[in-house]
């Protein structure tokens, strides 16, 4: 029964020099291809002896290895019932290395599928690499994600923003921080994700519904924030990042150190911390009062790795204080009109780092424990996580009492058990179960915001992938059960009334991927996902300060169900041309949104009310990205993103959807000499159209009309040099270079103030070993 893996040749055919080349910071992509058919070999486990690292080839037959030193590496193909097969590879520089292996038809039968918790499904996706994250360090995670075509932000001025994928945001997007779902997105659109971007080594965005693998709510997409694997060589390593930003005089410092023990090389750890302090930010002509930000984060990882098993403990704390421009809090419709009709900010200010009321103080703690073990079935992974989200809001008071007016706590325990089963002929896949327990609460006497609740959910899923020649098919099913036990304060005495909700839903996905030839591939995904209404949509009954309106929940809301079709195409001429196109259409049944209702009399006059209602929505769009290298030095790129969002029931446009936009850039890269490498200078222009596709009754429900189109110019330059054998990366960048005065439709502050003006950033990164 033994079938042997037969490797005849290893050829290193090609390498492309890439950015970082400091001694032990090589980033290598290994591509495993069958030598006769040139087919990529996916789902093959490679074990690198020198670094004690397991890696699984993706659907392109590739694995990515970071932080390698130049040298010889033994690459095992570890498989059940056979001796390990070893290849010896010389890796000298960063870049792509193609490994061609010849194997019998039965090869894949024997190869064991290994750890792939972060391995993604077939879907349109785009990543920000460590290099791109470095070039944007110091920005919030949402601002960094803007660099991905099809991703925008929904913001509250220059300090709070959250990502929008294909028109959907907040609770319709899942963010996975190191594999754990970030639960703070339950808290509405003015709550930014509490993730320290310095943790990430790569951020991947799955565009479109991906609920089967990642759970309910992933209607719009999934954002995976992935830290680097722990240090592979023995000894110490680390990195220091410094950043300075001109607009709000912000300073950012981040440090990381890691170690693998010499005597017990199975053990390694990493500690990381970052600090950020910024003051009031500036729009063209004016400072914006009380918009400072302070952030203190740290994280620690401890890992124990053996070839067939491993354990990892990760802990992180995110802690920030954000000032809120008090001019955005309006007491009445008249206040809002005054603010809208004023050309300049109604609250005059100078520069200060001091943060007054109103402000948010937010903390997020995460503890994550992961264990993996191989056996005859495949690889088992157990993942337990506890997270605590805490938000305090300090409102402007008549008489200062030193206390916050809201103390919101969300505690979540979650457990996931996943089996990546061994490949059975051409079939690979994973099955798993999820369990989540959640408690949302506040303090007695707090301002009314979200009712307290307990939520319990369980789920089971299976995703199987069938690969033959150039075709890959993937199918997944999932079943979720969610139970809400909610206590809503009602009546003049605000007595708690208990409500129980149960939601049960199956979901499914089907994908096909075809590599037409060396240069061209396409994929298609049919997916279905769902989302239970959140507590605020069910029970909110109060004033929304930003919009000067009263929002009224609806406890009869049904879950949203999404059915989507995504098509993706890729055309690539290596080192020359890259074309990426994505077409999508998504039908969302019971789409929840706010619709204007009757006026209500308050002690501050008559108010507009908005009720949570449901309709059937259809979102259709395109993302197109082209990158072309003219020669060794010049590269240009262009992106286009279009979206049409319809209310199918009313045959009308949906409100608050991103407008069409396009951007283009040019970058010149050169190695000046041995000491000055990777010198670059680049420029990027972005044009955002006015959103003209708005509901017919827009003037009755919102004012003023969406802001005008705008053009922004950004520039950047950087280089790498050696200081006492330590590589040092330096860069300077400028956003909104022309200090353009503009407002953005997806910014809630568009009623009150312009977008931030020019921001010049200086960055320095020093890795050490």
């Amino acid at each position, binding site marked *: 029964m033994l079938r042997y893996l037969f490797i005849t040749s290893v050829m290193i055919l090609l390498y492309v020099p890439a950015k970082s080349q400091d001694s032990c910071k090589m980033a290598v992509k290994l591509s495993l291809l069958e030598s006769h058919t040139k087919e990529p070999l996916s789902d093959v486990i490679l074990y690198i002896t020198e670094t004690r690292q397991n890696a699984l080839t993706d659907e392109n037959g590739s694995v990515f290895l970071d932080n390698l030193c130049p040298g010889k590496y033994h690459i095992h193909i570890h498989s059940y019932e056979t001796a390990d097969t070893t290849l010896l590879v010389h890796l000298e520089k960063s870049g792509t290395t193609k490994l061609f292996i010849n194997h019998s038809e039965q090869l894949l039968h024997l190869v064991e599928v290994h750890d792939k918790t972060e391995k993604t499904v077939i879907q349109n996706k785009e990543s920000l690499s460590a290099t791109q994250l470095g070039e944007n360090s110091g920005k919030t995670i949402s601002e960094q994600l803007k660099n991905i075509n099809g991703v925008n932000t929904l913001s509250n001025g220059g300090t709070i923003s959250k990502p929008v994928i294909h028109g959907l945001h907040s609770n319709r997007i899942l963010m996975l921080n190191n594999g754990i779902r970030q639960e703070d997105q339950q808290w509405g659109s003015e709550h930014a994700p509490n993730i320290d971007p310095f943790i990430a080594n790569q951020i991947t965005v799955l565009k479109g519904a991906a609920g089967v693998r990642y759970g309910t709510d992933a209607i719009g997409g999934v954002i995976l924030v992935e830290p680097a694997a722990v240090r592979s060589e023995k000894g110490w390593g680390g990195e220091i990042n410094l950043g300075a930003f001109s607009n709000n005089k912000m300073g950012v410092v981040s440090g990381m150190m890691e170690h693998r023990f010499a005597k017990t090389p199975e053990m390694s750890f990493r500690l990381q911390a970052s600090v950020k302090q910024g003051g009031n930010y500036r729009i063209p002509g004016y400072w914006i009062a009380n918009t400072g930000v302070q952030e203190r984060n740290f994280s620690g990882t401890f890992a124990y790795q053996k070839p067939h098993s491993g354990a990892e403990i990760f802990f992180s704390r995110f802690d920030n204080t954000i000032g809120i421009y008090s001019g955005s809090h309006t007491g009445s419709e008249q206040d809002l009109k005054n603010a809208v009709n004023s050309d300049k900010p109604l609250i005059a200010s100078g520069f200060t780092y001091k943060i007054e009321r109103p402000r948010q103080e937010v903390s997020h703690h995460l503890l994550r424990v992961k264990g993996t073990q191989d056996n005859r*079935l495949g690889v088992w992974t157990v993942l337990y996580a506890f997270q605590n989200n805490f938000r305090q809001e300090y409102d402007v008071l*008549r008489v200062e009492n030193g206390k916050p007016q809201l103390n919101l706590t969300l505690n979540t325990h979650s457990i996931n058990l996943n089996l990546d089963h061994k490949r059975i002929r051409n079939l690979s896949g994973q099955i798993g179960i999820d369990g989540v327990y959640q408690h949302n609460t506040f303090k007695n006497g707090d301002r009314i915001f979200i009712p307290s609740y*307990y939520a319990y959910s369980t789920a089971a899923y299976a995703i199987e992938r069938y690969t033959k020649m150039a075709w890959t098919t993937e199918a997944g099913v999932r079943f979720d059960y969610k139970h809400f036990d909610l206590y809503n304060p009602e009546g*003049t005495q605000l007595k708690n009334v208990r409500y129980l909700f149960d939601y049960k839903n199956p979901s499914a996905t089907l994908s096909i991927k075809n590599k037409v030839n060396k240069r061209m591939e396409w994929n298609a995904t049919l997916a279905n996902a769902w989302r239970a209404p959140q507590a605020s949509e069910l029970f909110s009954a109060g004033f929304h300060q930003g919009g000067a309106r009263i929002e009224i929940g609806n406890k009869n809301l049904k879950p949203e169900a999404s059915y989507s079709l995504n098509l993706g195409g890729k055309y690539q001429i290596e080192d020359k041309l890259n074309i990426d196109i994505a077409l999508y259409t998504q039908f969302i049944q019971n789409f929840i949104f706010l619709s204007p209702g009757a006026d209500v009399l*308050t*002690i501050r006059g008559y108010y507009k009310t908005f009720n949570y209602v449901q309709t059937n929505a259809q979102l259709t769009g395109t993302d197109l990205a082209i990158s072309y290298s003219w020669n060794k030095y010049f590269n240009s790129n262009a992106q286009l993103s279009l979206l049409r969002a319809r209310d199918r029931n009313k045959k009308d446009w949906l409100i608050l959807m991103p407008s069409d936009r396009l951007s283009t850039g040019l970058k010149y890269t050169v190695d000046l000499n041995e000491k000055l490498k990777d010198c670059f200078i680049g420029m990027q222009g972005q044009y955002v159209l006015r959103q003209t596709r708005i509901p017919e009754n827009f003037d009755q429900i919102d004012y003023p009309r969406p802001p005008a189109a705008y053009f922004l110019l950004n520039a950047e330059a950087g280089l790498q040099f050696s200081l006492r054998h330590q590589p040092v990366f330096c860069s300077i960048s400028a956003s909104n270079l022309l200090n353009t005065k503009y407002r953005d439709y997806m910014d809630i502050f568009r009623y009150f103030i312009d977008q931030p003006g020019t921001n010049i950033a200086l960055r320095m990164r020093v890795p050490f070993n």
Partner: protein
Amino acid sequence: MKNQIIKTAFIAIAFTTTISACKKDENAPIPDEQELITTLKIQLSNSSKGFMKTFVYKVENGFGSGSGGTIQIDTIKLEPGVIYDAILSVQNEKATPAEDITNEILEKDDEHLFVFDSTPSSGNGSVAVSDGSKDKNGAPLNQTFKLTTGSLGKGKFGIQLMHLPTNKAGTTPSAAGGETDLAVNFPVVIE
């Protein structure tokens, strides 16, 4: 092989049901409406005419609720061409006992300002405000003032309380700036 799957699945399901079975919190927290204002009272008097009356404008749920609750809006009935002494008081009548917020306003009088408007602005059914009280810095507060009635007719008298006004000399909400804490409109009958 199968046993192992079943075993692990069982453990995980047992775990989730255990945490689901945790005791319910029967005493879920109860929120409170912060700094609620439900009522504005205006006391008008004229000693030579022996007149003293208090008119009430009350919205039971104050502000921030999906509905107003019980509403009481008195009509201010006055004689033409008379000067009345006016005193404003602000209350939260949802609290028991009712909370008098006027003292808080007087304590932070530099952070508050009452502004007024009359429809029509002059003539039949109009009222005019003068001699408003000052804050600790000598800037307008207007918690007490003199109200002069116009000629016979019907009109409206608007009163707004601005919190943290940006311009204390402002006589309209937009000129004064800040956040509106209170905005009421009394019907006026001059007969």
